[in-house]
């Protein structure tokens, strides 16, 4: 039994370890280890296309995670005092957002936005004051942030609602009995209790957006995110530079995930 478990863990982690190992390979060949070197990290970090893609991914991940955490937490708090049809509607929307495959979300967002933009851009151009060129809507940062944030927001609502459900209600009642204002109760009692959930939701949202390929593939327009860059590089062939980028991407998500897990587990134990 122990041996079996060990074998499965090796299966899960050896491929990741091999990627990281070969990122430090001195040689050009992706197959033979020829000594330790960090040159491929240097190459990757001085490649302007990689850095541009990295900046795009970082911007999108940060913006979508902030917006999703904010809107998701607000919705989770409000959903406590909502019943009936509205609550059922939100439950259904959250369910659909999580369950519909990313590829369908990507496609649907692409054709809906292109259709809306094709209709909106001429209207905008006609209404714009003479002389100045009217701004054009197009796919890019906006569509990436909103499409990634949609899934993230559903995730944040699920996590924060679970925290609220596990919260000690008597503290809120006590706070109200002792004369605290609703805002004071929220800031000093509710928020500290649900904060680990909010933070974990934020970290997961960031990781999701930073790692997502399939939705970005459809809605990125002329922008290139890091996963899109890596995907098109792999099509051109396997190089140690991809290993270096992959190792950095994995490292970023591992650190964020372990932090998120720590927060969720700590909350679970206390609850």
């Amino acid at each position, binding site marked *: 039994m122990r041996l079996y478990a060990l074998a499965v863990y090796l299966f899960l982690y050896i491929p990741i370890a091999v*990627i990281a190992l070969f990122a430090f390979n001195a040689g050009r060949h*992706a197959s033979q280890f020829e000594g330790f070197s960090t040159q491929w990290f240097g190459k990757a970090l001085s490649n302007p296309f990689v850095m541009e893609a990295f900046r795009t991914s970082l911007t999108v991940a940060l913006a979508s995670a902030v917006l999703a955490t904010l809107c998701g937490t607000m*919705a989770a708090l409000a959903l406590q005092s909502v019943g009936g049809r509205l609550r059922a509607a939100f439950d259904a*929307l959250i369910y659909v957002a999580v369950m519909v*495959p990313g590829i369908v979300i990507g496609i*649907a967002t692409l054709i809906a936005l292109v259709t809306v933009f094709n209709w909106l851009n001429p209207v905008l151009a006609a209404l714009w004051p003479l002389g100045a060129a009217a701004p054009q809507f197009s796919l890019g940062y906006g569509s990436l942030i909103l499409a990634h944030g949609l899934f993230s927001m559903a995730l944040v609502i699920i996590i924060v609602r679970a925290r609220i459900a596990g919260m000690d209600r008597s503290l809120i009642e006590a706070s109200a009995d002792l004369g605290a204002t609703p805002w004071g109760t929220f800031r000093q009692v509710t928020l500290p209790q649900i904060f680990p959930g909010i933070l974990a939701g934020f970290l997961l949202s960031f990781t999701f957006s930073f790692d997502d390929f399939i939705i970005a593939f459809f809605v990125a327009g002329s922008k290139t995110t890091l996963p899109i860059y890596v995907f098109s590089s792999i099509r051109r062939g396997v190089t140690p530079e991809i290993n270096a980028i992959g190792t950095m991407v994995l490292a970023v998500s*591992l650190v964020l995930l372990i932090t998120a897990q720590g927060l969720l587990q700590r909350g679970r134990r206390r609850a």
Partner: protein
Amino acid sequence: MTMRPRYRTALFLAPAGAWFLAMLVLPLLVVIVYSFGERGPAGGYAPAFTLDNYLNLGSRWTAFRNTLTMAPLGTLACLVIAYPLAWFLAMRADARWRTLLLVLVIVPFWTSILIRSYAWIFLLGGQGIPSLLNALGLGNPRLINTPFAVLVGIVYGYLPLMVFPIYVSLERLDKRLLEAADDLGSPPMRRFLQIALPLSMPGVATGCMLVFILLMGEFLIPAMLGGGKVFFVGNALVDLFLQSRNWAFGSAVAAALVLVMLITVTAYMRFTRRWAGGRDDVALM
């Protein structure tokens, strides 16, 4: 905060509601409307009302057949590998290490599937495991760009999602039932088949449904490890929207995919209700 609570609630729900409407409900409605339309002269969409796209789904039958063979096969492979691990974690693992071991199972699922599939291109490619086998005198099999490679990628990608629900249902299982059966002289295999397995069925069903649903929409694993030979519905969709730009037909394929998934979920709900009289938690974290 002197605002009336009702307005505050509405204000708090409005951004999320608007986001869902604009980026989820509207796009999905557009897909449904477009699926009854025609391909525009230069690609894209032209308004029409026709069932041709749906009647034409048969032309992508290979993609549907591949998906509907590989998805159940991949789900089964995940189940067979995940169940013993979930059993170990729930029944045998040292309580001090259990949390860490669980986290170690879930963490890979949240890291980039792109990079993890790339790892298998690396391992199964000509210079990886095949050359290792060759050096050991075991022949030089072709592994990459085969259905086997896709299956390995699937198990690697989705195993964590199968382990977790099964673990949850095994962990909740009343262990005194097993002890009682043991005291009454029931052999281990019979204890497992008559007590543990039936009681862990909700977890098994949840895991299978989660993996199956995600596999139905898979694009990346067949694209990277199947080398264009193992073509899923997801690959057909990428082709239809980004290469041939036939939005109307592509929308019909996407709608058909979601429909097949809905049927699966409904069947799953019926199944679990019969098994356990209720739904098990879908715990992903």
